[in-house]
């Protein structure tokens, strides 16, 4: 059966198509994962709704409320954006580690998040940035914290008549530092374990932290925030010992899969290692800069 292509002129037309087709059509962003899934016969939509022509899904806007990133921004665009580098540097750092150059040229932030493939690089960074998903359907709009967006392997809260339009991030607190570390056999692979940490210094003593946010990918059915680890670090002084202990706590918060690349035990161990490293790197950034950019 031939797959039909719907090319809406704007968001309203795209949402109308979503409402009309629901499960029979899939929106296509960069296509770097979806076209592979179609090739492998994992999905066979009767139609694709092409999001490329839609202006409302583009651009990066900065306001006093924060940074709003259109879902159709490619990894290449995230990497090249000076404002993202300055405001939320951990996001372009993670984008640089997505797959290969050719895939980064076309693959989008919205596609990456909605595909929700285990080990994807952007979700941990976005979780650590407290990002929110701005979702539209024809009749209304809703905002979903990214921590509630992912529901299972390749699954999200997105309903079949909805479109993820933008990713919104509040300005990180002054002086915050952000780190993303990826553990993979080859850098182009999905992460066996990907850890993002945003550390907000308390500004009083060396290593003192007001707040820490940790996003972990590849180590559970969904990318997640290490809530208990974060709570334990509130008001702590970040040194080798607290970072090690935080890594061990984080390892108890994940539920890693076993696959041919890595067993669950190994992944769990790597969570503790990479959480520790990410925290210490962030602390070093803060110390070196006096003020790291998150």
């Amino acid at each position, binding site marked *: 059966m031939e797959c039909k292509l719907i090319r809406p002129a704007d968001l309203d037309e795209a949402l109308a198509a979503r409402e009309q087709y629901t499960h029979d059509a899939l929106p296509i962003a960069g296509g*770097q994962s979806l*076209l592979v899934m179609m090739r492998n016969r994992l999905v066979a939509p009767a139609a694709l709704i092409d999001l490329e022509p839609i202006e409302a899904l583009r651009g990066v806007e900065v306001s006093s409320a924060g940074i709003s990133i259109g879902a159709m921004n490619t990894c290449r665009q995230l990497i090249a954006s000076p404002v993202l580098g300055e405001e939320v540097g951990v996001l372009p750092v993670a984008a640089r580690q997505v*797959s290969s150059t*050719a895939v980064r040229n076309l693959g989008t932030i919205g596609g990456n998040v909605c595909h929700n493939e285990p080990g994807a690089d952007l979700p941990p960074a976005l979780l650590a940035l407290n990002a929110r998903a701005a979702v539209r359907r024809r009749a209304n709009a809703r905002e979903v914290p990214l921590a509630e967006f992912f529901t299972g392997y390749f699954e999200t809260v997105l309903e079949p008549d909805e479109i993820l339009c933008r990713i919104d991030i509040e300005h990180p607190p002054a002086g915050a530092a952000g780190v993303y570390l990826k553990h993979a056999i080859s850098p182009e692979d999905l992460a066996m374990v990907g850890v993002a940490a945003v550390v907000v210094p308390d500004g009083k003593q060396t290593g003192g932290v007001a707040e820490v946010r940790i996003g972990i990918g590849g180590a559970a059915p969904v990318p997640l925030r290490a809530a208990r680890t974060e709570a334990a670090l509130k008001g702590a002084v970040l040194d080798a010992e607290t970072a090690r202990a935080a890594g061990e706590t984080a390892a108890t918060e994940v539920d890693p899969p076993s696959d041919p690349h890595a067993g669950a035990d190994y992944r769990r161990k790597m969570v503790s290692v990479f959480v520790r490293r990410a925290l210490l790197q962030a602390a070093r950034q803060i110390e070196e800069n006096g003020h790291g950019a998150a």
Partner: protein
Amino acid sequence: MALLELKVNGQEVRVEAPDTALLLDVLRERLALTGAKRGCETSHCGCCTVRVDGMAVHSCVVLAVRCEGKAIATVEGCGDGMELDRLQRLFLEHGAVQCGYCGPGMLMAAQALLEQNPAPTLDEVKKGLDGNLCRCTGYTPIFDAILAYGRGE
């Protein structure tokens, strides 16, 4: 079916193809441009790499219809059909091609890299070619050829 108006290697072409036809299929099956190779067809191997508005892309995961109004460049556009261009000549001199299947993709990825970064370091070359696999050469001759290009050889 859709009637596509594409610009391939500087030449305007009109071609009929299914709505969701992939660029790789249009190039190979409809336009007889078989330089871009069919490899994994899942965006891993890079044998199908072409350039769209200068960017290296894997044509097995690109909708052809999205390329309308953009400049598509394939390996057939290198040199003039008789003479190799400088990059191709350096690939030849450095033994960067053995079985040859990855060659067209490597050349297009290297072109895209060199256009952005005319004198890349070895690390930058490796990163620029991270979407292209070669199972013969061990990559070193390919990297050498591109580094030589950067030195103006």
